[in-house]
């Protein structure tokens, strides 16, 4: 099913999304990878605030290439989400709800998604040139020293995604493969 979603990702919207849905996302999202997540979780552990309001926020696991002159951002496809598994439950516990990446997640992350009504979206890994087209604004907001891994605030329009794991824990990686294999029998 194809759905156009306006961010922020409220609990109500999150609950309406199901594994396998094609989604076009519009609104503000934040970028972060391993090093950024580590710093954010350390900040939270010290009782400090995050560089952005995590309430209903969506985080894109991406480290873009540098923008060429005239570009908003360089190529910007997803990185492997599993490396953020250690941090994702903490991020959800403070309100972050959406995650955009690629690849498998640990059961702990899925449990946290069910508890906090999170959604894990897949962007097409390796399609960095295509995905950059739907990023209309890019602003560096923190951790500049991390280079490609710095925290950025993006405005995206109709970003093409697929719901991989929904807030009930249903998983396209399991169900999609099983459905295809069943169709071949």
């Amino acid at each position, binding site marked *: 099913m194809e759905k156009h979603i306006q961010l922020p990702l409220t609990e109500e919207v999150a609950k309406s999304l199901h594994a*396998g849905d*094609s989604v076009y996302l519009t609104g503000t999202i934040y970028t972060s990878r391993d*090093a950024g997540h580590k710093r954010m979780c350390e900040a939270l552990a010290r009782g400090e605030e995050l560089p952005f309001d995590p309430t209903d926020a969506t985080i894109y696991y*991406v*480290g*873009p*290439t*540098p*923008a*060429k002159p005239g*570009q908003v951002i*360089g*190529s*910007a*496809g997803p*990185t*492997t989400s*599993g490396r953020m598994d250690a941090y994702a439950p903490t991020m959800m516990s403070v309100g972050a709800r959406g995650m955009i990446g*690629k*690849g*498998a997640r640990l059961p702990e992350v899925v449990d946290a998604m069910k508890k906090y009504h999170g959604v894990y979206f*897949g962007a*097409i*890994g*390796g*399609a*960095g*040139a*295509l995905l*950059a*087209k739907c990023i209309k604004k890019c602003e560096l907001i923190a951790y500049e020293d*991390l*280079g*490609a891994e710095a925290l950025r605030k993006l405005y995206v329009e109709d970003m*093409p995604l*697929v719901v991989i794991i929904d807030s009930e824990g249903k998983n*396209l*990686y399991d*169900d*999609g*493969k*099983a*459905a*295809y*294999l069943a*169709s*071949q029998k």
Partner: protein
Amino acid sequence: MREIQAQQITDVVEKLCIEANQYLPKDVQGAIRRCRECEDWEIAQGVLDKIITNFEIAEQESVPICQDTGMACVFLEIGQDVHIVGGDLTEAVDEGVRRGYDKGYLRKSVVKDPVRRGNTGDNTPAMLYTEIVPGEQIKVTVGPKGFGSENMSAIRMFKPSAGIEGIKDFILETVETAGPNPCPPMVVGVGIGGTFDKCALLAKKALMRSTDERNPDPYYADLEAEMLEKINKLGIGPQGFGGKTTALALNIETLPTHIAGMPCAVNINCHVTRHKTEVI
């Protein structure tokens, strides 16, 4: 004896770093298009269409195909009648990487220490492999390697008694474990034989070979075809969303090995399997 300036090597490496990251090799493009035609699963068709649009945009606009512009794997086949003058060879290669990743707006993805981390800021050092061959030319190949797929690679030291079945099971197990993580459809490089280290290098070299080219030994050419077919029956599909197209190609490279061993390495690559070659 032919003299080649280190500067020439720098220039070629610079150019190849940029071109390899912007233009997907024609054989890989062709393999993706053929798989799209054969794919009958709807969600998989949609993913392959977007993958095709992506490499077309990258080529037309001269931008990186993928944001992971990789570690620069540089292979030099140096003719034994060549004398490199005017500088240090390793430094010449690194300078080429440094300039290519800067001028090409490529991502700097290398940390200076594997445990203590810290970005080197210029994507150096290159992973440099040199081989001395007959002749008076230098063949330069640059293969930027992304780590989403590199992380899903594996090596195993088999007992010879495991036989070909052991190797087949290991290849399938490695691909199945990789699942959606390495950005399928993948290209699978397999090394069999040699020593522990040479075996891993064989697998990497297998990824530098054209996806249209089969192993010259019919035994291994048949094994390549058999394993590709088996992988494409796993159902992982493009991006792991389900479908037929899990791998575009599987290339095997072999070497003689010890009487007591049968090493096998599987180096996984994504659909952005990049490499570009130039002869100096």
